[in-house]
């Protein structure tokens, strides 16, 4: 009897030993929110894509420097003699998790699915006219016109298996209204480096390494336990108490404490996202202002005064604890079209700011409400709060209205706000993405996030021309020209580019990804 | 001479308050002989009920017995530890409360309450106790007792409940029953029945009764002796017939005026002008002096002592000044 117990405990002991050995390659990865869905074309949202990148793969990828790298496509080029057609050469010998071979028909299927009506990825493929398979490993994408930058749009469009999708009735992206459950929301069959083992939404997901993955170097992490922890303090506490290995969304104020803690290190790096303020243009008086006969924001002098009143360096030093890159242009450095000259911003000059206000006819300043999100960007509410104080010093009396992003962003898209904060990421790494949505007049699919209703017909024409311009040099010149106007006109009031911070167990190395899409395949262990 | 069943000597009950000490019962003494029924009468707040509670050792804090002794069958019981006292309560002295509606625990069956009490005091089995309980209920006049014993209190009428209360008070065969206004809360029509039941059962068991009431009519019909209390003191004590016929204390004589109206409420007594003083504002001298028709100067200065005026009769009034020659009451009264 006693011997039995002994041998039993020995067995238990040895099994725990095995487990702990295996867990040396397990990584517990915490971030603020879970992927919304596993259907890769259903939501165009950061955490959802980040998760999907481990299970599914895209034709091309972007590395930490922001350059495109081959993934399921080994090369891509504009077809000779057909400037509106892109040709993609696919990787051979790739299989899906269920063993099916990856071929051109899967790419055709997935691109068609991604640009179908119910897909949330549709906007990125809006210029696609037709996708055809030339042979098993070549795909042609014909655009409605020359689209020199289309490959930039493909970094988050995942490839699904056509046969699997048909067999499981997920050819269409899930339709909410139909009220039907969609197999693809909870099940996956990708080509990616990890296979989904289990998933409890908002609680934990477990992924294990895909031994049949095509990449030559096998990832060091063999098991991922993904843990969404929404409360920032709890998230940090979990890392401090050793319950997780990586925290992806680290509050800036905790960076110092975490890096000062034994066994924990923090990696920081620039994110491809700019934080800015927008204001209402036009002659109509502002709804929230005490000035009822004119719109102060419409005066260039007022906009200049505001820029001169805002101390970007103080925001960086105190609110962001040094974790930001103040900027004078609403365009992150990763994006083509960014220059150091544009990035420069004026020094604070309160006297000049007050003089400008007086000159514009507002010697006593004015009042206005600032709408700010409070759960979207790094310290968004605190930045707005600081701006309220800074504007107060030149007599602009700002009331702060703080809301969760779900309630905030409709105010911007429906132009119900006079003065607002927003952040803009540029997944295409191209300025046109900024111009189309933020600068172009609101018409059709243009200017969707032009919350201030800025309108400049000359700029609109130039922006439209970017879409079809094939001469890259000429295009770059137009981009520069547009930026000059945007900066001179102070269309938006940029504050800084965000910095991302990942905190982790110091055995681990994980560089910061500019789109905040770190891959656990890139994790290395110190020992 | 037979030994008294209960002897109360110079009992004083006090309640400390922030304004000083209130004396609810002051220096009272009386005896109850075996089988005797002592009526205690007086207005609300005269200290009648407090006397009963004091005998039971059930005075709530911060009240306390400040002085005096309670002697039951020759044994002093006012200073017993609680565990000892519990053996006396219910077993030696039963108590009947005023309001049958509130004195029974509404959540327990009558049987449970009876059996629990019986088995607390008597070495009976559950079944024996139940049999005894049914018998008791029969005795107190509850029809169909064997079935109704398992009813809850709310299923009985007020009069029936008081019968149950009597059964509970008597179930361990006490030698003394303190009945604290047992009929006050009842309908006039059942008052007499309840008194009858109580008296009959006590007589059968040979138990004495201390009947606290403010209904002089009940006293007249029931009691052997009566103690008239006023403002915490005994104004007069003596055999019922004598006191009724010839009340010596002016207060008692006022009370007696109420007898013809059976069941009259002394609280609305109009024969004596004025009302009893508050305990906190008892006048100097005789407490009754503001209302007394015979008030003298002396009454405002000194408190009258109880004086034996006839065998078994005492009165505290300056109309009956102490006479050294009449010393027959000395055996019952400690010297002042």
């Amino acid at each position, binding site marked *: 009897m006693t011997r039995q117990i002994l041998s039993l405990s020995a067995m238990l002991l040895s099994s725990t030993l095995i487990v702990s050995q295996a867990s040396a390659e397990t990584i517990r990865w915490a971030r603020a929110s879970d992927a919304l*869905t596993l259907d890769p074309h*259903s939501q*165009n949202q950061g955490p959802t894509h980040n998760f999907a990148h481990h299970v599914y793969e895209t034709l091309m990828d972007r590395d930490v420097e922001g350059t495109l790298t081959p993934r399921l496509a080994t090369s891509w080029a504009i077809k000779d003699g057909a400037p509106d057609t892109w040709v993609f050469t696919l990787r051979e010998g790739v299989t899906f998790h269920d063993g099916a071979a990856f071929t051109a028909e899967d790419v055709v299927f997935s691109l068609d699915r991604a640009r179908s*009506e119910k897909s*949330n990825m549709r*906007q990125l493929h809006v210029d696609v006219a037709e996708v055809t398979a030339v042979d098993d490993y070549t795909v042609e994408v014909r655009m409605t016109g020359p689209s020199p930058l289309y490959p930039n749009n493909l970094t988050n469009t995942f490839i699904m298996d056509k046969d699997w999708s048909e067999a499981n009735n997920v050819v269409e992206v*899930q339709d*909410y*209204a139909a009220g039907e*459950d969609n197999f693809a*929301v*909870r099940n996956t069959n990708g080509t990616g480096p990890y296979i989904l083992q289990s998933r409890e*939404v908002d*609680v934990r997901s477990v992924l294990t390494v895909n031994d049949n993955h095509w990449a030559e170097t096998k990832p060091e992490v063999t098991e991922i336990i993904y843990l969404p*922890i*929404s*409360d920032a*303090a*709890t*998230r940090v*506490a*979990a890392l*401090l*108490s*050793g*319950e997780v290995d990586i925290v992806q969304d680290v509050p800036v104020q905790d960076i110092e404490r975490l890096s000062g803690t034994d066994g924990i290190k923090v990696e920081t790096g620039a994110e491809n996202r700019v934080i800015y303020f927008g204001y209402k243009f036009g002659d109509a008086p502002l709804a929230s202002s005490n000035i009822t006969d004119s719109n102060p924001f419409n005066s260039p002098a007022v906009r200049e005064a505001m820029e001169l009143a805002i101390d970007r360096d103080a925001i960086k030093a105190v609110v962001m604890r040094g974790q930001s890159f103040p900027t004078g242009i609403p365009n992150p450095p990763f994006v083509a079209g960014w220059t150091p000259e544009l990035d420069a911003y004026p020094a604070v000059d309160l006297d000049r700011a007050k003089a400008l206000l007086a000159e514009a006819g507002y010697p006593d300043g004015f009042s206005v409400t600032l709408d700010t999100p409070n*759960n979207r960007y790094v310290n968004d509410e605190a930045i707005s709060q600081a701006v309220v104080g800074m504007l107060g010093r030149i007599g602009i009396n700002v009331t702060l209205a703080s809301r*969760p*992003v*779900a*309630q905030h*962003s409709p105010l911007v*898209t429906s132009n119900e706000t006079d003065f607002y904060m927003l952040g803009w990421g540029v997944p295409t790494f191209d300025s046109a993405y900024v111009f189309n949505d933020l600068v172009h007049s609101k018409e059709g*699919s243009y200017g*969707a996030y032009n919350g201030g209703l800025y309108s400049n017909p000359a700029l609109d024409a130039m922006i439209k021309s970017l879409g079809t311009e094939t001469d890259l040099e000429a295009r770059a010149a137009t981009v520069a020209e547009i930026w000059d106007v945007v900066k001179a006109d102070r269309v938006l009031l940029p504050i800084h580019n965000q910095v991302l911070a990942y905190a982790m167990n110091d055995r681990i190395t994980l560089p910061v990804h500019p789109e905040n899409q770190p891959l656990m395949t890139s994790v290395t262990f110190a020992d | 001479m037979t030994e008294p069943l209960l002897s109360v000597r110079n009992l004083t009950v006090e309640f400390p308050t922030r304004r000083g000490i209130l004396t609810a019962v002051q220096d009272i003494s009386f005896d109850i002989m075996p089988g005797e029924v002592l009526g205690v009468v007086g207005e609300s707040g005269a200290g009648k009920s407090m006397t009963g509670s004091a005998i*039971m050792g*059930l005075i709530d804090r911060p009240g306390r017995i400040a002085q005096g002794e309670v002697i039951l069958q020759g044994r002093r019981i006012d200073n017993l530890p609680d565990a000892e006292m*519990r053996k006396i*309560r*219910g*077993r030696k002295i039963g*108590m009947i*409360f*005023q*309001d049958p509606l*509130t*004195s*029974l*625990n*509404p*959540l*327990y069956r009558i049987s449970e309450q009876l059996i*629990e*009490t019986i088995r*607390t*005091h008597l070495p009976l089995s559950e079944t024996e106790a139940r049999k005894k309980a049914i018998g008791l209920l029969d005795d107190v006049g509850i029809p169909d007792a064997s079935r109704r014993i398992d009813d*809850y209190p*709310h299923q009985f009428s007020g009069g029936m409940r008081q019968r149950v209360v009597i059964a509970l*008070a008597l179930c*361990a065969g006490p030698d003394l029953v303190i009945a604290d206004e047992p009929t006050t809360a009842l309908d006039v029509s059942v008052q007499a029945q309840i008194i009858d039941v109580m008296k009959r059962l006590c007589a059968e068991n040979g138990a004495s009764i201390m009947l606290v009431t403010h209904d002089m009519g009940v006293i007249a019909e029931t009691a052997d002796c009566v103690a008239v209390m006023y403002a915490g003191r005994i104004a007069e004590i003596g055999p019922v017939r004598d006191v009724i016929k010839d009340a010596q204390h002016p207060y008692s004589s006022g009370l007696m005026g109420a007898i013809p109206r059976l069941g009259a409420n002394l609280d609305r007594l109009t024969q004596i002008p004025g009302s009893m003083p508050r305990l906190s504002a008892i006048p100097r001298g005789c407490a009754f002096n503001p209302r007394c028709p015979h008030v003298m100067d002396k009454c405002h200065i000194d408190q009258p002592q109880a004086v034996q005026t006839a065998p078994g009769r005492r009165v505290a009034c300056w109309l009956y000044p102490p006479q050294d020659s009449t010393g027959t009451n000395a055996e019952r009264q400690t010297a002042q």
Partner: protein
Amino acid sequence: MLAFIIRRLAQSVVVMLFVALIAFVVFRYVGDPIASMVGVDTRLEDQEIMRERLGLNDSVIVQFLRFIGNAMQGEFGISYRLQQPVTELILSRLPATIELAFVSATIALVFGVIFGVYTALRPKAWSSAGIMALSLVGVSLPTFLIGIGLIYIFAVELGWLPSFGRGDVVDLGWWRTGFLTESGLKSLILPAITLSLFQLTLIMRLVRAEMLEVLRTEYIRFAKARGLSQRAINFGHALKNTMVPVITITGLQLGSVIAFAIVTETVFQWPGVGSLFIVSVQVVDVPVMAAYLMFIALVFVLINLVVDILYYVVDPRLRVDGGAGK
């Protein structure tokens, strides 16, 4: 008894309809569901197409009737945020909340009654005064501060207990329990204490007040006058009578433990319906919010029913006059 339960059930239906109306109206007009369903970068015309498909452009009455009709079948649609059937989501989160609420309620009830009885029986003792003072501190501390404080002390500084989640769970059919693993039990401690504290103090103070009240009643004096033992009086007569009002209020309190769990679950990242709700509020996930509200209403209706029946069982007086509640 049957008529009584039927009447109660009818009342419950009215309550549920009332709550359904609130649930529908509130969440139909709070925020913009489309804005929360799509990323910031979705184009407006796509949003309009979704709006149409979801029936958000139909008349309000049509939408409400559709809501009631679906709710009757336990059908609350698909979560905007997670794209899963709401009923399924709530059911999958339910075990976590119920286990937490159950443990908290047990702690609150057991310690609440013990402390309440203790302080009532020893009203003058120093220990009673201490417990009473502590209970006031408990009532005065917001739940979120208690949670944060406990995490800081026991998880971060001492490292004794986990700071978040419910540890390893074991599947028992659709019920996922944390009771069967060590880490599951350890994870339960801090959130359960946090959640129970407020209810504990409430129950304790209630028991104390009721007990003091009961101890002053005539039937307790009569029981004493019959020479019953202190034990029989305190724990038989007094406690049972104390429990009658306590049952009602405690029952309702225990129901609110489930709803109260919102804050606790948020702080401890407990994967229950409360945290599901708060996340849904933040992103205006209308179907989940509506379903949650209906769920809470259902819980309360059920608890009310159980409390009524318990009352009925404990208090014989009600059995005759047909359960006239207070």
